[in-house]
C-alpha cells in the first residue's frame, strides 16, 4: 500500500513560496511504552545520509544530547556537528528503531534521510503533481 503526500508550501523571504515533501512523524525513546512526542514535520531529504532532528525535540524526550556519539557531517554550509542517539521513529506502516542525529543548528524540526527512512520506503518524488508517494518496504 502506498500513500501520497501533497507537497507542503512554505513562504520565502521577499515573496514567493517553496514546496517540499514533508511527513508528519513522532519519535520516542526505544524503551517499552516510552511516550511519543507530538507529531512534527520532517522533510523527506535524499541528500541527508541519516535522519536528523533538532536537539530541542530530543531534549523534550529527556535525551542528554551532547552525551551522544559525535558525528560531524559535511553539507553545503560546511561541517556541522551532530550527536547520535538511538530512538524509535513512528512512520506509516509501523515503528522503526533507528540511530538518528540531533543538532541545535538544524533550521527545521527534522530531516528524513537515507539511513533510517529511505531504507524503509520506496520514494517517488513527482514535482509535476506536487506530491511524494511512499511505499513501505518490509524486509524479510
Amino acid at each position, binding site marked *: 500500500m502506498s500513500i501520497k503526500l501533497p507537497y*507542503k*508550501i*512554505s*513562504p*520565502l*523571504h521577499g515573496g514567493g*513560496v*517553496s*514546496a*517540499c515533501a514533508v511527513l*508528519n512523524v513522532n519519535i520516542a525513546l526505544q524503551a517499552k511504552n516510552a511516550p511519543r*512526542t*507530538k*507529531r*512534527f*514535520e520532517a*522533510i523527506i*531529504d535524499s*541528500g*541527508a545520509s541519516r535522519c536528523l532532528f*533538532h536537539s*530541542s*525535540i530530543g*531534549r*523534550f524526550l529527556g535525551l542528554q544530547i551532547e552525551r551522544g556519539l559525535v558525528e560531524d557531517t559535511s*553539507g*553545503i*554550509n560546511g561541517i556541522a556537528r551532530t550527536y547520535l542517539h538511538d530512538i524509535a521513529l513512528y512512520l506509516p506502516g509501523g515503528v522503526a528503531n533507528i540511530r538518528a542525529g540531533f543538532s541545535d543548528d*538544524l*533550521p*527545521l*524540526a527534522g*530531516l528524513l534521510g537515507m539511513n533510517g527512512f529511505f531504507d524503509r520506503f520506496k520514494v517517488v518524488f513527482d514535482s*509535476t*503533481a*506536487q506530491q511524494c508517494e511512499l511505499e513501505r518496504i518490509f524486509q524479510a
Partner: protein
Amino acid sequence: MTVINTTRADLLRGAPLDSWIALSKDETAIVAIGATFGEAAKNSERAGVDDPVILKTPKIWLPLSV
C-alpha cells in the same frame, strides 16, 4: 497545470521566526507558539489541542539546502 495552495504559506508568513509553531490537526491554524519544542507542545495542550503538528520556523525563510 498544478495549482499551488498558498494558504499554508500565508499562515506561516505571519508566524514568528526562529520559533516552534503548533498547528491545528488540519494544519489550517496556528494554535500555539514556543521557544522550544516542549514549550510549543505544552502551550498547544493549554489551548485545548492535544494532537497538533509542530514545526520549527527558520531565522529567515530561504530555499532549503540542508
